[in-house]
């Protein structure tokens, strides 16, 4: 099977005031609002009745509304009022909404939608209502058009809008995750690259398992992937075009190993580790010109570089102090200043897309943790603990982290997990088999 993978073109029609519901009643209730990070949050009750089929959509209308609900409930910030508790039915998208019926079942937000399909195109429109105030939430009445095959993306877009309106944060549901799919016994593990929706759906394989592949990373536009491959017989960073699956080895210098690649925010530069004679340092490669520059020059191990979102700085790990610790240097290179200061070893730092936090792996007292700290190293917070957690990757909105968790022993296996930056909502991502090294895409265009 030749995997194909193409982002679906989706048109967004904005400003559809015509979709606004009945005139708002005069009410004083505050609009639905969740502030992430502000202490323990009681999940907001929402109702997501099956979307209305406005022609040719059939089961897609219902399926789409299920994905919207799953996205929102999956954040841990919402709970869904089950359909069998609903008093009212939504049978017409433009019919009136009996707000008293939704209030009676304690729904604070009601999401209605309609889907129509023609050929391989579908159109999805939706409204999110502030039930207490009996009106459509500002900016939460939109229409999306796309392909039938890409219907889940439209559900994610609907959920992203609702999530954004209520939390004030960016969305992250309409995104992909590239990862390593694993099979075989621990001492002969087979690995191949795969990509899936953020929630584990729509898995597509990008390579076969003929050679070891490690730690893929998306480009800032999601159309290319960097990873480490043993395809040449030796570990080399490889650049793959996601659409065509064409790939090429970057910076092939005999006698060296290249690994731990990551894009710059503008997509034009790759930072990575190059090992020569046993010593690993960080280098930057201009993809177009091929110009290579050395950013660190130290007899210790320097690896896992990650740019700040503005491209001006690079966070990385080094064992120059004797153990792995996290440092920040200018993007042009240099000594760097250490920011990690607690007990144990700190590694695999990744700069949040919001710029405010660094996610990292920490090893201490025989356990592994995923944690976050501010960019000056303060306010360290450990989010997880297990036999082996490693390799955090940020959701596009900088509020959720995905990582690899591996179990111990001869039958030990890797799986993908996510947790939000407050340490809540820890959960496993459903995958077909053992999986590792997730890397989140940006929000899809």
């Amino acid at each position, binding site marked *: 099977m030749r995997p194909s993978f193409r982002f679906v073109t989706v048109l967004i029609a904005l400003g559809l005031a015509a979709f606004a519901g009945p005139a708002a009643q005069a009410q004083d209730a505050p609009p639905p609002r969740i502030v992430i990070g502000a202490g323990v949050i009681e999940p907001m009750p929402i109702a997501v009745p099956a979307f209305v089929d406005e022609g040719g959509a059939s089961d897609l209308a219902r399926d789409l509304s299920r994905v919207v609900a799953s996205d929102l409930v999956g954040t841990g910030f919402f709970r869904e009022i089950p359909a069998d508790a609903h008093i009212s039915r939504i049978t017409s998208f433009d019919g009136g909404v009996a707000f008293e019926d939704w209030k009676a079942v304690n729904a604070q937000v009601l999401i209605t939608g309609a889907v129509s399909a023609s050929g391989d195109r579908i159109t999805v429109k939706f409204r999110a209502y502030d039930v207490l105030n009996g009106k459509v939430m500002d900016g939460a009445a939109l229409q999306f058009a796309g392909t039938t095959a890409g219907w889940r993306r439209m559900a994610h877009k609907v959920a992203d809008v609702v999530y954004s309106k209520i939390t004030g944060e960016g969305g992250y549901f309409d995104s992909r995750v590239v990862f390593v799919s694993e099979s*075989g*016994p*621990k*001492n*002969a*593990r*087979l690995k191949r690259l795969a990509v899936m929706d953020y929630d584990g759906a729509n898995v597509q394989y990008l390579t076969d*398992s*003929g*050679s*070891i592949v*490690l*730690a893929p990373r998306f480009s800032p536009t999601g159309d290319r992937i960097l990873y*480490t491959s*043993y*395809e*040449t*017989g*030796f*570990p080399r960073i490889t650049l793959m075009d996601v659409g065509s699956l064409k790939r090429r080895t970057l910076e092939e210098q005999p*006698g060296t*190993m290249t*690994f*731990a690649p990551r894009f710059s925010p503008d997509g034009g530069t790759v930072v990575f*580790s190059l*090992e020569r*004679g*046993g*010593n*690993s340092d960080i280098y930057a490669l201009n993809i177009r010109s091929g110009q290579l520059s050395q950013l660190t020059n130290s007899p210790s*191990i320097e*690896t*896992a570089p990650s740019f700040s979102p503005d491209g001006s700085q690079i966070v990385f*790990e080094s*064992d120059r102090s004797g*153990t*792995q610790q996290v440092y920040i240097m200018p993007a042009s290179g240099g000594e760097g200043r250490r920011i990690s200061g607690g007990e144990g070893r700190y*590694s*695999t730092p990744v700069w949040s897309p919001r710029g405010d936090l660094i996610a990292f*792996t920490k*090893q201490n007292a*025989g356990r592994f943790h995923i944690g976050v700290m501010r960019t000056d190293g303060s306010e360290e917070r450990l989010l997880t603990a297990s*036999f*082996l957690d*490693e*390799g955090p990757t940020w959701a596009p909105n900088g509020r959720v982290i995905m990582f690899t968790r*591996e179990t*111990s*022993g*001869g039958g*030990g296996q890797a799986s993908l997990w996510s947790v939000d930056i407050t340490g809540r909502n820890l959960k496993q991502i459903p995958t077909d088999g053992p999986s590792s*090294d997730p890397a989140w895409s940006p929000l899809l265009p």
Partner: protein
Amino acid sequence: MMLAPKALLVLAALTLAACQNPDRYGSGGAGGAGGMGGAGGSGGYIDTTGLGDPSDPRSIAYFNQTVGDRVLFAVDQSTLSPEARTILSGQAGWLNQNPGYAIIIEGHADEKGTREYNLALGARRAAAVQQFLISQGVAGNRMKTISYGKERPIEVCSEEACYAKNRRAVTVLSAGAGV
């Protein structure tokens, strides 16, 4: 791809395909995944087919079993222990007497580390062995190094007894340097 065509022909003739490919852990390589799976945790993971007669002191099998093809390391270390130096001195002596073999030194780490760091650590270990062998007169141009990080443990348990065997550098031979 890493060997000259002429050398590859020689390899084919000698049916040493099992160790020609530096990525011998790739699923496609003979003596790769299948051989390792079959070996289980016994430590005898190298497919001995084509490695020659262990009683022939010039065979790869003899090198692997009698000279000793691997050295072990302490946690996070790439320093060669006195025991490791003894084994490597033996390797150097044998390699100097058997100049027809090309050498790939594999560095490995145990699972208690992050992926990228373990790759770098494995490379350090392989380089430490390479430097020692060079210091003992083995020609540098016969040797390549590769790190597998924590990707290819030889023992699979999650205890120090297994970790100690996984923190290793293995000297893998193939006929190819002017046999």
